[in-house]
């Protein structure tokens, strides 16, 4: 058994709104091993952010509610933790960074103080020592002239720099797990590459496990070891990165891979592909597979029963009725091989 630092089991999260219950997450399972990077991929509304924010218990409850499931962090179930204990975990053992660096920092506090705050809260050191540690963090994320810039305010930094500061804050107390919720979506492509390189560097230096949420498969290929594909509040497929690109098994994953723009497309012969349709309504979530309405290969049973999440070779898991013996044979559009052949 690999060393699992985080294991989410059968997590169900709902939101109680005036219009009813929104079942945002329905039976999600995933895990992260020590020092490994897990990417969670999916469209907006697929439940990726809710999943990880629930791990940190940052979702306001009410109106949110964990209806069922376990979140095992280093063996302890966070679902049962009270707010006091969670506070020690947040920032201390699990760090989190969010999407928009422009709004994630307090505009009226210096950057140094914002980093030092967490250090003082978790390590109990005095202010002077905390500021020294904050300075080291700024240098670790490659902010030039760190000893001057430590006393500056967020608006004096560019977007990419701010995101580095955000990363510095999240890693200040040397957490075992870093959760990054679309950290590069709001940034320029060139800056994006820099931030990803920074994260790779951090992973190597301190062996921090990372959960990276993204909708960009290119980022996944760049930095992750394993991938989980989410749709409509459920996990569709989970595999090692090479496997997901070489041998994806779920029609949704096929759709995602097919819609990656490629530079060598001959525009007169091929169109830019996308998946028709829109994500499901979570007030009355679908009974069967959530992707069925948009799936070219949908079958009668897909609408009435949820597919079982089966594990194939190489820890490759998938939830799809196509895997069932009774299903028709289909040609996998990515591998061009039949789904029935043993792979």
């Amino acid at each position: 058994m690999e060393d699992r630092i985080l294991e989410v089991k059968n997590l169900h999260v709902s939101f109680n709104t005036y219009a009813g219950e929104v079942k945002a997450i329905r039976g999600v399972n995933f895990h992260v091993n020590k020092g490994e990077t897990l990417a969670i991929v999916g469209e907006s509304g697929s439940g990726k952010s809710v999943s990880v924010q629930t791990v940190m218990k940052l979702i306001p409850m009410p109106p949110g509610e964990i209806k069922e499931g376990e979140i095992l962090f280093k063996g302890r179930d966070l679902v049962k933790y009270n707010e006091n204990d969670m506070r020690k975990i947040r920032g201390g053992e699990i760090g989190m960074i969010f999407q928009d660096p422009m709004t994630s920092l307090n505009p009226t506090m210096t950057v140094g103080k914002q980093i030092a705050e967490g250090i003082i809260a978790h390590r109990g050191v005095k202010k002077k020592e905390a500021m020294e540690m904050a300075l080291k963090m700024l240098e670790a994320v490659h902010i030039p002239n760190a000893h001057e810039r430590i006393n500056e305010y967020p608006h004096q930094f560019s977007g990419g720099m701010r995101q580095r500061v955000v990363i510095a804050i999240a890693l200040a107390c040397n957490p075992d797990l870093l959760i990054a919720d679309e950290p590069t979506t709001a940034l320029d492509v060139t800056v994006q590459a820099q931030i990803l390189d920074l994260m790779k560097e951090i992973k190597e230096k301190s062996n921090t496990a990372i959960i990276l949420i993204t909708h960009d498969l290119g980022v996944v290929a760049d930095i992750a070891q394993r991938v989980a594909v989410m749709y409509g509040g459920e996990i569709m497929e989970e595999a090692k990165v090479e496997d997901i690109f070489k041998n994806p098994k779920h029609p949704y994953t096929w759709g995602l891979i097919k819609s990656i723009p490629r530079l060598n497309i001959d525009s007169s012969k091929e169109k830019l592909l996308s998946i028709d349709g829109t994500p499901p309504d979570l007030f009355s979530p679908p009974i069967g597979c959530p992707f069925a309405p948009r799936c070219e290969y949908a079958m009668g049973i897909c609408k009435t029963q949820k597919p079982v999440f089966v594990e194939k070779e190489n820890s490759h898991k998938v939830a799809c009725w196509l895997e069932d013996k009774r299903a028709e044979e289909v040609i996998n559009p990515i591998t061009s091989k039949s789904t029935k052949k043993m792979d």
Partner: protein
Amino acid sequence: MNNNEFLIIGKDLKEGEKISKPSLTYWQDAYRRIKENKVTVFFFLAIIALIVMSIIGPYLNRFSYREQNLDFAFQFGREAIEKGHYFGTDDFGRDVFTRIWEGGRISLSIALVVVLLEGIIGTLYGGIAGYFGGKIDTVMMRIVEIFLAIPTLIYIILLMVVMGPGVLTIIIAMGATRWMPMALIVRGEVIKLKEQEYVMAAINLGASPMWIITKHLIPNSMGQIIVKLTMDIPDAIFTEAFLSFIGIGVPAPLASWGSLANDGYKLLVRGAHLFIIPAIFISLTTLSFNMVGDGLRDALDPKLRK
């Protein structure tokens, strides 16, 4: 489970696009939100009640507002009610109930007319300044900024001093100065809306400035305008009461709630009801409009749409 279930059917997009929540227009949603807010509805009804009473009130008992009866002055309580003086009598024996509603007519009419005036002038001024921008906007706004350096109340006082007391002069004085804050708000809204694409589309299609201002920009600012107008009514009532209290308001023998409160205040020791009753009505009206204004603002705020 038979094998028919495993035959491939393919996509069913209509199924996926069912949306459970009905989609409402901006105004429908606002109306729904207002209706749900019982407090707002309650105070709205209170306003209606006050307006209705101001119209029919004076006819409800047999006294007129100037009929004097010096033998029966300063009466209040059960004895007075039996005689038909529901709110008692004042220092000249005049019926307070009738005078309150007469006063209500004046106070409410002044407030409503003034607010209407400031709405029209302010909206046009602000709309034009905001739409044209550039030098026109700068000049128009500088003028307003200079005047707004001191509270409009002071201008109103000066104008009243110059024009002398009277209902008409009060309306002119208040209308001539209070449109400026409104202009500021409308200009702000227009500037925000100007950037929207449908405005650029309209310009490209060759619409004239007046058309754009009146058909697109103003209707879409209506939400903010209505809220401001509603909140300005209590301020207008307050201003009129204030003017009357320092002696340059509505002249005798006419009465407004403000002048009634002023007269009543001077006689506080001899007949507290003469002060307290107008005070209650002023406060109640102001409270009602404020509550309704608050409710309207919450209902019309697109950010709060659920």
